[in-house]
């Protein structure tokens, strides 16, 4: 379908596809099997300027928006979403810095992020705080010259691999949601260490770890934005990044659809290719419709973010929820179409099915996001009454 992408957007998409097909495809099964962080591919992405996509021009980036980032994530995910999320997490870890960081902070960190020399990670979740982000317990206590961090962050994508972490911690426990702030913590800061690397169902090429802060002194100048603004910044950040999760899910679904069509065309049963069976045709058609609808929604949400709209909570939640549910359904059906072969690790669809699941869970579980959409509906209704 025609999405009226600009020449530049088409270039970005096709280069991301080239990297995915030439560099990721040959190693994706191995990365999945070994749970190995894809450093070589991060280097390829860096060389191709992919980390510059989301960094402003003033800081050696290319200054593109949410849609361009989504195009890259979609194409990488079409081949391996474990790799894609490692890339996307570096964007996530940079957004608060890009939007709220001081000139000095941006000058110090963004050029290395843009060149791909340093990866970033965003650290919010804790053992007691998943969807209920306000339940975080990590504290940042003001001391002479900075803040002392104590606490544990859980399930942090790029944990251990990234050099730069944006960490949300409570600076004033008494103020609840108004009591959290965002900090830049560099990897080798004393008192900052990593817990075990998680073993995951899917996106196994990506690294997921605990971050442990024990009396970790972070200098004053590493506070991002204003004190107490941590949650507001976080909510805005997640609204902005959710179309990216949608793009990830979209890419997975696209990859699974293509694999299913390939298989259905090759596989002969009862003397005919599977694809000539009406029941299979029906499944494939449904998958294709879902994928295209997800694409339309993800691109539209990304464009809404890029339009400068004040509120895009609803748009980005819709894109994320729909695309991730689509990914789960389409990958499950792809495994079904590929039958016994699809269940085996020699075929890519079982990996895609495992990878799809997380997109319904992270950056806001779909149930929580549906709730948020409903809240927006009620608010709107209330305004018109």
């Amino acid at each position, binding site marked *: 379908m025609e999405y009226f992408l600009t020449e*530049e957007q088409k*270039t*970005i998409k096709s*280069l991301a596809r*080239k*990297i995915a097909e*030439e*560099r990721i495809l040959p190693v994706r099964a191995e990365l999945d099997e070994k749970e190995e962080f894809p450093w070589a591919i991060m280097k*390829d992405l860096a*060389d*191709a*300027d*992919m980390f*510059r*996509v989301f960094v402003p021009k003033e800081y050696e980036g*290319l200054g593109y928006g949410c849609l361009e980032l989504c195009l890259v994530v979609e194409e990488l995910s079409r081949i391996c979403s474990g790799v894609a999320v490692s890339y996307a997490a570096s964007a996530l870890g940079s957004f608060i810095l890009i939007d709220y960081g001081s000139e000095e902070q941006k000058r110090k960190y963004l050029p290395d992020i843009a060149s791909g020399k340093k990866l970033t990670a965003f650290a919010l979740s804790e053992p007691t705080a998943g969807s209920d982000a306000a339940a975080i317990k990590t504290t940042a206590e003001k001391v002479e010259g900075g803040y002392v961090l104590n606490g544990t962050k859980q399930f942090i994508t790029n944990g251990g691999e990234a050099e730069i972490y944006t960490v949300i911690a409570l600076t004033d426990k008494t103020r609840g949601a108004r009591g959290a702030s965002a900090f830049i913590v560099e990897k080798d800061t004393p008192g900052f260490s990593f817990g075990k690397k998680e073993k995951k169902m899917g996106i196994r090429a990506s690294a997921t770890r605990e971050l442990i802060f024990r009396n970790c002194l972070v200098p004053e100048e590493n506070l991002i934005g204003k004190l107490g603004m941590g949650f507001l910044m976080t909510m805005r950040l997640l609204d902005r990044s959710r179309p990216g999760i949608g793009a990830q899910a979209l890419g997975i679904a696209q990859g699974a659809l293509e694999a299913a069509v390939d298989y259905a065309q090759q596989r002969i049963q009862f003397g005919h290719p599977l694809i000539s069976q009406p029941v299979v045709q029906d499944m494939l058609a449904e998958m294709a419709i879902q994928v295209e609808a997800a694409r339309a929604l993800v691109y539209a949400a990304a464009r809404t973010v890029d339009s400068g709209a004040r509120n895009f909570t609803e748009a980005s939640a819709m894109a994320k929820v729909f695309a991730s549910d689509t990914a789960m359904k389409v990958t499950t059906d792809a495994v079904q179409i590929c039958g016994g072969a699809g269940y085996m690790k020699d075929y890519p669809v079982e990996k895609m099915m495992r990878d799809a699941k997380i997109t319904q869970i992270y950056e806001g579980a779909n149930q929580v996001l549906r709730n948020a959409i409903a809240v927006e509906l009620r608010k709107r209704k209330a305004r018109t009454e």
Partner: protein
Amino acid sequence: MNIIVCLKQVPATTEVKVDPQTNTIIREGIKSIINPLDSYALEEGVRLKERCGGKVTAISMGPPQAEEALREAISLGADEAVLICDKAFAGADTWATAYTLAAAIGKLGQYDIVICGRQTLDGDTGQVGPQLAEMLGVAFIAYVSKIEEVAPQRLRVRRMVEEGYEVIEAALPAVITVVKEINVPRLPSLRGLARAKSAAIPVWTAGELGLDPKLVGLSGSFTRVIKVFSPQRTCRGEVLQGELEGQVECLVSRLKDAGVI
């Protein structure tokens, strides 16, 4: 360093057919690419620049559409590119090609190293590199698998030979041809693609190179292709039949009878 990389645009596949009527190769509908081994040459040129500073100029002799290959070279790290293009250059053999490239390199001015791929996918000769070196009157090293060191006026490389490899030192300027073991070519970058899109690629004709049309292209070539054909293969053997075990036994006895084992 001034680094020159010679590229050729070739069909993307070697799976070509010969038109039985005209005895020519059917090129229609086949996508063109940078000759794969030339992309290793380009990568090595760009790495050399990243190591020692300087400039990479990509040159290609070919039809107007070879400009695409040069734009791609810019997206992959070349700083400048020149297309050497003239109807008079058509049908050149390796001598006439090397002669024309040498004239273009002469026009580019001072250079330190010229890097070429070992051979092309289509012509498969591997002769342009050494002939170019001879016409430029500089040192030549073929089959380079690693550039070990570059110093002013001097180059130390590994060169593959049948029995292993040799470490060779050469005076600069020099022409080298590279093998695919030398590196892994990078993919284009977004900034490179943007530069490639807007880059001005000058076109140099025989006139601009001051070349006598009689010495270039087909008229400057010593060789003539008198016939082109698809190789014929006839089935000369037998596919053994029966149980697998019996087939293997049969094979062993045939080989014994033939006296090869």
